[in-house]
């Protein structure tokens, strides 16, 4: 029997006449693949692209070029010679020219008697032959042609006090003050069991903290510890023990003392009273020549202050810190706090009758902090723009854009306030800095990871090339066949 015989009357069908091999159907199928791919491209683009909203770049750059300026007016009163204001102005201008960096942002004008009211902070200098005395925004000073140069020097220190940027803590709207009483070793006896901390704070620190409340918000915490060993052994002296300058730099035994809680992210200023162990008293600070220094306090820049307190030998065991010691210790803490917060000193020859701070000092501090903040905000905004430009896969979301815009608005308002209200200027500058930093530290702005080009080829090529090349090949073949058909049809029609 033959293997396979078609029944009578049937013929082989031409494959090209099968319905699923019809040119039209085949082309429809191929085209539908392409339609899906092309239609999916926008979707794919949308889901794989990084959201990068445009930032107000030109605004940031124009804002960064701005410079905060504070007009300051000085009024001379009770003077005999009408030419004195002009010569004082001349002397101040000389000083401004000599160190423009220190006087940055300050427009100082000495008022003539007939000057109308101009905007700006008004300071008054009254002629008086007693000792120089600064009170709120006034200064009593012997004003004579001969003392004018000294007055100009005093005014420079009052208006633009020299500052130690190394020591002063960086500006923050909130600080935590951590007070710690450390007994090196209470077990050795004669330890200090406690202290009247709230009384001491309200007596010595509250006036300062209230005076500075326009600048900072303070949170206070305190603790007493009974075992706080040193990480080194003090030098033994004939009359007690000494700490060399070298050991002083590593005095804080951070591995074993826990000096502050970590409840918040605010910067902490530490204030420590260290009570040496009974077997190591008196403990003194030595200077570089090895002789005991009269001071028992020292300051770690931007960190805080430490006082070594040696209880008197007649001290009974386990008693609280005596009131007299507490007073002297806290007045030192107060000085250290002022130094750490950058409150300027008065000129050496000028006395004061103000309880805490004079208006001169507070204003100088406000001006400096506002300038710092404004500069910080401008720098941060510039870096955001620069980094977004530089790192191409860094996302920029709506909240970042909003914060940048708000920060720019705060800067604008700061300039508007700069001639009228110093407090508002500082607040706006602090807001601008906070907002700019928040934009910079936005958790969403994490740049996606960088992958080398080879990695991308290695991942995508096996996936896409094997699928795409046959599809392109069929499409090309199909187009060629179609064009051939058309040519043949055309030539057939021509014949």
């Amino acid at each position, binding site marked *: 029997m033959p293997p396979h015989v078609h029944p009578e009357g049937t013929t082989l069908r031409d494959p090209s006449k099968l319905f699923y091999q019809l040119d039209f159907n085949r082309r429809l199928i191929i085209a539908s693949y392409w339609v899906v791919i092309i239609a999916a491209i926008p979707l794919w683009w949308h889901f794989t692209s990084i959201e990068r909203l445009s930032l107000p770049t030109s605004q940031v750059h124009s804002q960064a070029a701005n410079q905060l300026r504070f007009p300051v007016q000085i009024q001379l009163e009770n003077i005999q010679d009408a030419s004195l204001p002009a010569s004082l102005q001349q002397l101040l201008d000389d000083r401004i020219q000599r160190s423009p960096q220190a006087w940055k942002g300050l427009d100082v004008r000495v008022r003539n008697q007939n000057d109308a009211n101009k905007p700006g902070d008004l300071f008054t200098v009254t002629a008086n032959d007693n000792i120089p005395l600064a009170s709120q925004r006034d200064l009593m000073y012997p004003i004579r042609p001969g003392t004018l140069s000294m007055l100009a020097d005093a005014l420079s220190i009052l208006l633009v006090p020299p500052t130690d940027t190394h020591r002063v803590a*960086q500006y923050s709207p909130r600080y935590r003050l951590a007070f710690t009483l450390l007994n090196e070793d209470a077990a050795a006896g004669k330890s200090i069991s406690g202290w009247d901390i709230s009384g001491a704070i309200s007596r010595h620190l509250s006036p300062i903290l209230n005076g500075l409340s326009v600048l900072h918000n303070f949170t206070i915490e305190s603790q007493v510890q009974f075992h706080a060993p040193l990480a080194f052994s003090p030098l033994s002296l004939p009359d007690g023990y000494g700490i060399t300058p070298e050991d002083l730099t590593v005095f804080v035994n951070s591995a074993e003392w826990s000096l502050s809680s970590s*409840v918040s992210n605010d910067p902490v200023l530490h204030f420590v009273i260290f009570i040496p162990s009974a077997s190591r008293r008196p403990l003194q*600070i030595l200077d570089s020549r090895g002789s005991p220094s009269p001071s028992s306090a*020292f300051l770690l820049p*931007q960190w805080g202050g430490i006082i070594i307190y040696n209880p008197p030998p007649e001290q009974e065991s386990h008693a609280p810190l005596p009131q007299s010691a507490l007073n002297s210790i806290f007045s030192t803490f107060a000085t*250290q706090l002022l130094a750490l917060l950058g409150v300027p000193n008065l000129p050496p020859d000028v006395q004061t009758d103000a309880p805490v701070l004079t208006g001169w000092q507070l204003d100088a501090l406000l001006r400096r902090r506002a300038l710092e903040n404004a500069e910080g905000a401008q720098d941060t905004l510039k870096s955001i723009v620069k980094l977004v430009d530089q790192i191409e896969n860094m996302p920029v979301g709506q909240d970042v854009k909003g914060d940048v815009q708000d920060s720019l608005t705060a800067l604008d308002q700061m300039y508007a306030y700069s001639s009228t209200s110093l407090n508002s200027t500082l607040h706006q500058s602090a807001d601008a800095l906070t907002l700019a930093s928040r934009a910079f530290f936005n958790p969403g702005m994490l740049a996606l990871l960088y992958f080398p080009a080879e990695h991308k080829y290695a991942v*995508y090529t096996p996936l896409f090339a094997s699928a795409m090349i046959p599809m392109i090949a069929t499409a090309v073949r199909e187009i060629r066949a179609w064009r051939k058909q058309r040519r043949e049809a055309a030539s057939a029609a021509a014949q």
Partner: protein
Amino acid sequence: MLVVSFPHLLLFLFSWTWGILATTPSHEEIVGEFFNQNAHAGSSTSNHTNNWAVLVCSSRYWFNYRHMANALGMYRTVKRLGIPDSNIILMLADDAACNSRNRFPGSVYANPGRGLDLYGDNIEVDYRGYEVTVENFIRVLTGRMEPSVPRSKRLLTDARSNIFVYMTGHGGNEFLKFQDNEEISAFDIADAFEQMWQKKRYNEILFMIDTCQANTMYSKFYSPNILATGSAKLDQNSYSYENDNDIGVSVIDRFTHYILEYMEQINKTSHESMADLFASYDPAKIHSDPGVRADLFGRPLNEVRITDFFGGVSQVEVGNGGDGEARASPSGTTEEENSSSEERPAVAVNASQAQQKVAPPSRPAKWRMTRAWGGVLLLGVLVGWVGFKR
């Protein structure tokens, strides 16, 4: 017809792939720009007022015991030299000490004879286990955290902070693996450091890395004031130092071991400089060529104290905090003998630095590019051929 359309087809395919996939930023340009900017020399004493350390062990599992020991060894050293726990960010898988295979539960040893338990009694691991990720590491550096993240997990540095960044794990050319499921590239770290610099989040950085081909990891840095050192150059492995037969695995890597050994003679007030540390590197002992990169760093290395990065604060003002007090600085009296005795090692380091200079991306990079394109071309030809074959 076919001959003409085939190259066209490939061309189309390649331009399409290129357009979509190639988003490489031109890092070389940025690098060049920053090298030029940073030509000025900085001051010789450090300006920092606080020290921070970020210690990363990017491996997990028992067989990577040595990487955890590396990180814990560094942790012990920086803590001993005065960086408080609050200023140390330790990222550690932390599955060695309490691993069921550990014959000495609760302990991690890195030395023959198991003399020193690195796990000790006071370890604060800030990022543990699966929290050790590339993303978290970049977030720690750049400070881009959710508001809810606690203080202990944050790097709260400012413009006066010196930061010591130590990394260890398994790596390769320009990458470091994190826990076998992702990797960080040299570009990621370089970009993170640049973002820190832009936000004034550091004064100086010491970057130290112990992994295979470690020196490639710092080759992409372009921000100023970064001093970098690594354990092995391109195409070199970094080897382990000690096999403990009781523990059953290698307990520490050579590079880290010799650094820690050197550090043991340093105390909080030591005057040794970074140049001394780098001069102590011995390729014969380490079994690979450690590298140093100082071209971004502003100060001469023989004036940079080891304690500038590994220690606590450096300056103290005695008195009541008013004006005009003498500033006690540990330099002072011994400065002179220092500078004379440190001259020699400095020269040695400079020489080794010259060897370690980052190779310009000329020939090897081009060759890699050609190879990559060749591969794509070959694949395209093969698939195209199959597609056209009737």
